[in-house]
């Protein structure tokens, strides 16, 4: 299942990347793939901005504006003026 196209904030810095493959392991939507020893973003629109890749990248090669894709949380955040957090 795919969500909206071309909206995610995921950025992968190939200069900093050492192709360790940690992002490939942790991504729950298989956004990254390794081929020929190089790690690349192959399914960008599948990204849900959970932030697992960025948090587990020891080299700071991934940036993403992490957050919960939860409408109720965003509304709660708007009403209370705080960051959207789920549950």
């Amino acid at each position, binding site marked *: *299942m*795919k*969500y*909206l*196209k071309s*909206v*995610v*904030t995921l950025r992968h810095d190939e200069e900093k990347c050492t192709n360790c493959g*940690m992002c490939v*392991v*942790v*991504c*729950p*939507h*298989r956004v990254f793939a390794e081929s020929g020893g190089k790690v690349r973003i192959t399914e960008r629109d*599948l*990204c*849900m*901005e*959970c*932030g*697992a890749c960025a*948090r*587990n990248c*020891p080299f700071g090669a991934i940036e993403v*504006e*992490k*957050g*919960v*894709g*939860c*409408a*109720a*949380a*965003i*509304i709660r955040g708007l009403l209370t003026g705080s960051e*959207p*957090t*789920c*549950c």
Partner: protein
Amino acid sequence: MQNQSCCSGEASERQYTANCCGNSSQSCCGDAGQDFGHEQASCCGYSDARTKKWIIGYVPTPVGNVPQVSTQLSFSDKYGFWKCRWSIGRMRYTIDPGLYCVGNPDANSPVLVTANYKMTFDRLRMELSGLDAWIVVLNTYGINVWCAAGKGTFGTEELVNRLHEVRLSDIVSHRTIILPQLGAVGVAAHEVQKQSGFRVVYGPIRACDIKEFLSSGLKAAEDMRTVKFTILNRLVLTPVEIIAALKPMVVVFGVLFMLNAIGLGHYGLVDLYALLGAVFTGAFLTPVLLPWIPGRAFSFKGFLLGLLWAVGVNLINGFPAPVYGWLKAITYILVLPSLSAFFSMNFTGSSTYTSLSGVDKEMRIALPVMIIAVAAGAILTLVNDFILVFG
């Protein structure tokens, strides 16, 4: 393993339990303590085992007895699942954080890490039959692994502290811990290694794949690393959605009832089932039929089904017969799809694949449209009421 006495036993154990039960029995043995974890579970295990049927024994370790848990779910465990699915006590369904085990693990046995939401813990242990393993339960305040990782409670700091507190390095000789893959949202594996000396290996997403993961030398197939959202996954989430949606609807029904009571409103059974149908469409039908409804935005999917419902309600009740009235028909067309769209949009939080950027974009368009449509519908229905009373 069966040594269940709290403050007696062998010298080494006495030393340990004295530590635990000696200084402040209140905090140790009180059942409402927040952060006792390992000590409480081991030290006060005797009473634990009587109240918690899923603790079936104790395994002695150099640092004390560790509760051994059953890999079979009892009726009460399953009843607990059901209650959570219906939003009954869902946010309080916790177990004590700390160290547990299945089977008879030793210093070489694998270590699994999980959250202290009891449904999460139960779904893990039911997949571990025949295994000898340690289970470190983090304090996620009763939230499942993925959501807790998003909040940061299933996180690097809690993990490192908990490993230290349960003295895992005195229990196992290896230095590898297995985390559910979705825990990676909150845990930085390289930080954990630096701070605790334990190497984090991310296991499969679903507990049902753990046996295969362990037997294949800690390798997870692509399929085990991919989050799914099957029709069954979606179906079990809908009762919580329906209950959450009905709460604000009670207010709406209250307002309509008041309008009737003061002699202005003309609301009846049709309005009741029209509105309830919109809730059902948005909070149940759209989630269940999600991948088969055209469009990508959840609110759009909910709007489409809601529109079908609104047209249906109008046709069933005699539209376009003159007696039915255009105002009523237009009101339904404005209000019902908006309600359905709103409750569908709320399902983004339960889904496994929506991003914050995407939901933000969707809401910027959908929310103003819904508000305007519902407000216009409310004005129209009041105009209709006035015409019926005074016209």
